[in-house]
């Protein structure tokens, strides 16, 4: 009596179908978000040109000069009825054209977003990866030594850090490292003195300026990783296959790998999602450290009533989340054999 296991055929068409489904849903979502943000943003009160004028005055420019400086801005105000503006906006969006900024008149919103995105990606990626690695490593430990003193300490510190809002950590970091013990720069992305490129001083400056934001990101999200990993490890440890492996006399290293790999799997999707989420969540950190990323761009664009920039930034953060969602799902399809090869017997 011979039976055959289901042959693990990669179901390519299933994955593509899944992908197209996701894309369609993602696009629909983007459209809804675009529409919502368009409506909200256009109903925000405030005349940007008047605002610019008064701001210049407040900064000490003479009224004549301020008037000269702002006169041309009127040309950049959106024209037409709301509906016309909407259809224009959507039309341009199809060509990935987000319009022109008003606060930096004449600059494409995409250019501004591109410039800012690079500064968001650096600390977000750095901070998230740092905290992920740290949190996951310590989380494994906390999960394995659940009942020990150090395990308790790790989980309590994790819960606390997880609970504390980013800006609290950011402010504390700033207070400690720039006021009480001033060893790190308080803001900005990199010292302008150094020629950008792959050279020592430039990179050193880059790292120096990124330290605090990255550290803040890392600390703020570290707790979450510890907790998630800990509970994941605890779940895996309770799984029978671990006990089975132990009873088969597998070496510690192998056992550890079994636990770690199985426990980390669900965290990968969270990782992808949190990367997407952080694009929008970077506001506090960027504001506190004056780091010129998307969050700060959004805050500034709201401050300047720069409709196009506001809408664009908002859209990009949302799209990042949608893309992260899709990526997380596909990632799971790739890394989990249960999903990858389908079909249970």
């Amino acid at each position, binding site marked *: 009596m011979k039976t055959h296991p289901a042959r693990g055929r990669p*179901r390519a068409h299933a994955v593509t179908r899944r992908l197209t489904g996701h894309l369609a849903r993602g696009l629909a979502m983007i459209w809804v978000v675009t529409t919502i943000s368009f409506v909200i943003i256009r109903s925000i009160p405030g005349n940007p040109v008047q605002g610019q004028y008064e701001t210049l005055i407040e900064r000490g420019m003479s009224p004549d000069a301020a008037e000269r400086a702002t006169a041309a801005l009127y040309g950049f105000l959106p024209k037409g009825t709301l509906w016309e503006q909407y259809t224009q906006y959507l039309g341009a969006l199809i060509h990935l054209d987000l319009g022109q900024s008003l606060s930096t008149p004449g600059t494409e919103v995409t250019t501004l977003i591109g410039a800012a995105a690079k500064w968001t990606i650096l600390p977000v990626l750095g901070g998230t990866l740092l905290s992920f690695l740290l949190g996951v490593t310590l989380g494994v430990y906390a999960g394995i030594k659940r009942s020990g003193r150090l395990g308790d300490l790790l989980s309590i510190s994790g819960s606390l850090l997880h609970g504390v809002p980013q800006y609290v950590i950011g402010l504390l970091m700033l207070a400690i490292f720039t006021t009480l013990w001033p060893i790190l720069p308080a803001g900005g992305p990199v010292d302008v003195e150094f020629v950008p490129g792959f050279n020592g001083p430039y990179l050193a400056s880059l790292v120096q300026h990124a330290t605090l934001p990255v550290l803040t990101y890392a600390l703020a999200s570290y707790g979450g990783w510890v907790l998630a990993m800990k509970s994941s490890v605890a779940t895996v440890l309770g799984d029978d296959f671990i006990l089975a492996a132990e009873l088969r006399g597998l070496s510690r290293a192998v056992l550890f790998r079994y636990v770690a790999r199985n426990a980390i799997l669900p965290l990968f999707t969270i990782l992808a999602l949190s990367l997407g989420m952080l694009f929008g969540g970077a506001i506090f950190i960027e504001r506190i450290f004056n780091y010129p990323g998307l969050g700060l761009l959004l805050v500034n664009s709201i401050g300047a009533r720069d409709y196009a920039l506001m809408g664009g930034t908002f859209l990009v953060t949302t799209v990042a989340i949608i893309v992260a969602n899709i990526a997380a799902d596909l990632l799971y399809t790739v890394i989990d054999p249960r999903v990858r090869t389908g079909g249970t017997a």
Partner: protein
Amino acid sequence: MISGTGITKTYRRRGDHTGAQDVYALRGVDFTVPKGGAVSFIGESGCGKTTLGRIVAGLETYDSGDVVIGGVPMTPLRPRKREPYFRRIQLIHQDPYSALNPNRTIEQTLRAPLALRARQMKRPGSWIGERAEELLSLVGIDPGYVLPRYPHQLSGGMRQRVVIARALTVDPEMLVADESVSMIDVSMRLSILALLKDLRERLGVSLMFITHDIATARYIGADSELYVLYRGLVAERGPTETVISGPVHPYTQALLSAIPVLHGLELPGPDRVVPTEALDERRPDTGCLFARRCPFRSDRCVEERPELAHCLDPTHEHACFHPHRRQVIPVERFTSGGPDANGTAGTAVNGAAGAAARVRTTA
């Protein structure tokens, strides 16, 4: 009387990553449970027993066919209209743990349906409490002890009794017991079976008994009927004792052959049948669903699907082109055979089974 005709049910399994997949849980099942009668359903895992039970209890929809309760066909009725009928059929779950809400005391659990019942029957509020105690006594537990407790404070047997008591709150016509004893400790299993049998005899509640342990099917009553399901179809049906002692369908035979033999008390059945393959639901179905695994298959079995038919005994039906009575269940050893009785017992009782005639179907 409750009966079903041609019930089919197809699950569309929304494979998250593999695309949709149809599972034919039931492919046209007919059955009849007489008032106060009992029927048992046995079959391999996944053959549709639970699905059938849930459909009969009104907890699951079906694709075609009909459930007839007290002469009223359910299919033409609107869902709201069906409810009172289906309430007359109560399902006893397999797992007495999950069947009781862990956050509610037994009293709360029993009161809710009783309150509903009291309203329907225009009984006073005090009736609820009395009835709860009455029911608990009926299923053999001390109401004073059980009522204020949470399920986790009770043993498995007690929990199952509470579940049965709860089913009785609505004065059902039929109980559907889906593997109701498989999670209960061996030593207490029988007491639950006895309770079901007792309820049937004393209250006239009919019983639909779903199990994979064929021996228990014998226990619920002498006049019971046994249905053997295979992949959503009835392979064989007949009076329980008849089917057990003389199964005709090779599938029933394989199933009964798989029952472990209590060496020391029993001797293995002489004609044990072993399927040629393990079950593989993904293969396309043509002809007899069991053909691929059947040691007696012919070409016809692969091409044509056999209908239910009978040989001599009209109460004993089977869906097989090659029916043949075989003696597969273990034989009781009334005397202790001593250590030397090993393995040779088979031949001793061979005669009875060998005498059974090989009969062709008349249908």
